[in-house]
């Protein structure tokens, strides 16, 4: 048996130093992924660096420009309960409220989930839809990455060794929030997620953003779809065309949550339902 060191640094710099000193150290946020992986012997870190005491990683607050900054250590449950999100930003608390089950929402954090980068999880698609920015700190300093450039593939993100997610910044999002999550049972991973926002008045779509999750290595968001829908009456044929474009663009696998063909089959209907819900 090898001993595993446990650290609980009081400030971000100390945490980064501990992670920089040992490439086999792992940061611990809510533990909803790290701990199961330890239990399954999928990871054997030499050290665990708890982020629990880092004040920089806490808080859900509005910035001057109407953006919302969510500390990486905020739990899904606290985000889901927050009333600070305005208009289309509400897709973020909606996504949080659909994650797994209450026990997991009470422990799991947005930063941990983003760093894990599982494409079937709920955050990647929501944050890509919201044009969120992922804030990162590491040995080389701090930087921000657009969500669309952060989630790169299966368990692959833009994080470099020694870096951690510190916050997620959600800019103002016009329109009404869209978050349609379809899964076998409520607490399962999603089979398909449609996330976004739309500003639809008198049947005319003034602005729209739509991203599809859990259907491939990265969330799919198509400018062509958003251009097609914007400025036009939302006729069923138009919506169906948009759904078909997305269905062709996704790259799902066959798995226990549904075949690739099934996901493509139901996506246009889910897109239509999502848009009808905010019309």
């Amino acid at each position, binding site marked *: *048996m090898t001993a595993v060191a446990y650290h609980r640094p009081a400030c971000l710099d100390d945490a980064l130093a501990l992670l920089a000193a040992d490439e086999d150290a792992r940061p611990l946020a809510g533990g909803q992924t790290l701990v199961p992986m330890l239990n399954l012997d999928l990871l054997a870190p030499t050290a665990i660096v708890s982020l629990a005491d880092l004040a920089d990683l806490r808080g859900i607050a509005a910035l001057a420009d109407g953006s919302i900054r969510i500390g990486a250590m905020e739990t899904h449950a606290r985000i889901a309960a927050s009333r600070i999100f305005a208009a289309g930003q509400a897709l973020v608390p909606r996504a949080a409220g659909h994650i797994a089950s209450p026990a997991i929402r009470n422990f799991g954090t947005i930063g941990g989930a983003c760093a894990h980068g599982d494409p079937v999880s709920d955050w990647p698609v929501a944050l890509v839809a919201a044009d969120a920015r992922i804030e990162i700190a590491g040995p080389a300093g701090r930087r921000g990455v657009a969500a669309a450039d952060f989630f790169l593939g299966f368990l692959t993100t833009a994080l470099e060794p020694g870096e951690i997610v510190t916050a997620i910044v959600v800019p103002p999002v016009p329109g009404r929030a869209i978050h349609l999550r379809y899964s076998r049972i409520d607490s399962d991973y999603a089979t398909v997620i449609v996330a976004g926002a739309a500003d639809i008045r008198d049947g005319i779509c003034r602005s729209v953003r739509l991203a599809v999750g859990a259907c491939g290595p990265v969330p799919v968001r198509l400018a062509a779809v958003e251009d097609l829908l914007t400025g036009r009456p939302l006729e069923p044929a138009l919506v169906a065309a948009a759904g078909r474009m997305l269905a062709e663009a996704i790259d799902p696998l066959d798995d226990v949550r549904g075949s690739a063909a099934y996901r493509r*089959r*139901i996506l246009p*209907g889910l897109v239509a339902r999502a848009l009808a819900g905010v019309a």
Partner: protein
Amino acid sequence: MAEFAVVGSSAPRLDGLEKATGRAVYVDDMTRPGLLHGAVLRSAYAHARIVAIDTAAALALPGVHCVLTGEDFPHRYGAFVQDEVALARDRVRYVGEPVAVLAAETPALARQAAALIAVDYEELPAVMTPEEALAPDAPLVHADFAGYARRVAVPLPPNVCAATTISEGDVDAAFAGCDVVVEGTYRTQAQVHCYLEPCGALAEADAAGKVTIWSSCQSVFRVQATVAEILGLPMARIRAVAAKVGGAFGGKSDVTVQPLAAALALRTRRPVRLVLTRDDDFMMMRTRHPATVWMKTGAMADGRLVARAARLTLDGGAYAEDSSAVLGFALLIARGPYRIEHVRMEGRVAYTNRLRAAGFRGYGNPQVTFAGECQIDEIAARLGRDPLDLRLQNAVRAGDDWVGGQRIEACGLVDCLERLRAALPPAAPGRGIGVACVAHISGILSTSAIVRVLEDGTVTLSTGAVDLGEGADTVLAQICAETLGLPLDRINYAVPDTDGSPYNWSTGGSRVTYMVGRAVTAAAGQARDRLFGHAAEMLECAAGDLELRPGGRVGIAGVPGPEITFRDISARAHWAVGGPIIGSASVMFEGGGFDPKRSAVTGNGIGKLGAFVFGAQAAEVEVDAVTGRIAVSRLWAAHDVGRAINPTAVAGQIAGGVAQGLGYALYEDLRFDGPNPANPTLMDYKVPGATEMPEIIPIIVEHPEPSGPFGAKGIGEPPLVPVAPAIANAVAALHGVRLRTLPLTPERVLAALDEA
């Protein structure tokens, strides 16, 4: 209910407080001085020859005490076919099969050591489905099958571990005369037991070599007998004790890890605890038998059902275990609870290189009832009849005979259907309602009970019945209390322990209330008679003039004055006259079987089963047109329990059975990706959660069973069985599509809707 004081009341669980406060002790909570921890190495191959096992590296780790392999377990076992071994020897037959087990100072060390055991395999071709197993020249799962001892020794084709036929009347002639015949093939999947508590045991040997095994099990006596058989020891050297059991559902009716823990304890002379991880439990243990059911049912234009034929192929996995009995029971019950004169039921169980299939709540019934109850609706549709009406027209009644000739003594099926009809709402747009019935049995084999009156007049009730979480302890104590006129808190229910408890076959077959309840009634009645014997002398009257009075007192019937307490009587018995008062009783279910004058039967693996129990359910569903997902909004479950000893416990069994039936109907399916289970985790194998549950409306029907304790019979299994066909029938009622494959996944529903 004025008739009884304790029976019929929803008494709180005897163990409710300790469970609700987290103080109930399960195997994983138990410890002993010097405890070692076990871990198991699993096979990575579906079929392979074991060339060599090198345990040196594992044994060299400090703190590893003992490593055992198949060579340490020379005895074969198996209830119907002696094809099983406690650890794989020479061959592995499924991915996950235990190959080696070890004991070490800590659980982590044990796991680490298991990973150091090197096994040299020579991979062999595997058969992963019955189709592959039954193909000509298929690789044999058991090359030595011909040499195995078998209980039902009929000739069998290769890779078949059981084959049975049951027929009555002249099916072919009857079909030829039918006005309507429906025919189809139905497929059901591997459902995993998914008890909350994985399998576990703690074993400890004493200086004389007697080993005590605390375990999560359905029967301490099965554990005792099977461990003795596997280890080649007399049963008198094995003591099995029940821990609290966190669910079993049939998955713990045979031994699980007890033989491994016992062997490690005997070898190390240290107590050893072996509790499976969820991961190990999924990979090593059991599922329900996947089934392919071809069925044909015929009726006359007036709705009379006259003939049914079925051919059933079950996937038994790598070891036969209970497959003969599951098959036999499935075929016996496949007629359904209808007056169908002509039946021909044929079936076989194929060996495959998958984890073994086993008894599972329903025991072959859910598979055939899915087919049978779908076909009743298919006939109703063809005849333009209301499906519930058609069932009422054909339903069996008390006094009818079952297939084989057993008389149905009590039967509330018609009442269940009538109560269901009265409860159902009028048709609403977008909602479909489907109905399905269930017949099952409650009984099987033998059991016993001992009632001891303690010196102060309170009572210790001993049975061998392990409570799996359903509340049987409470129900049996209620039966004892009622028989003796005592309040429930004067009854001590003893933990099942082969050293002190009287024999019980198992908690299974929906039998504890009915069978053990009969033994408790008789034992408590004997204790009462002995109390009366003393009281007659003390009160100077005839024993026949005495009556029980509430609270443990005896008086003279019709004379309000003189009375004496159980305490006075028991003190006299203990200290002065006659000796302690003990009542005991043994019972065996002796009805049933096949009457050779009416039934032609070959290869039968079942004996005399039990009293028949009946129920009927209705499901109200909506179907999402976009995704095909079925949502069950309400489910009415009418079940005849003879008498509800504890109505809340009955409603609990109904809710639990419906939940598990909902999982079977809609979600649960252990799939395979080549030789490997594709979803052997709770992350990927989904049981329904709270948000998936419909509103469940239990309807308790009471047609007292003459032989049952206070008229009671079982409710453990039946509520699971009709859920899937009721939902499939509801979808058919709503959209006119007939789904014949479980689970009814959104993908399958949508494909059917697309085709329609």
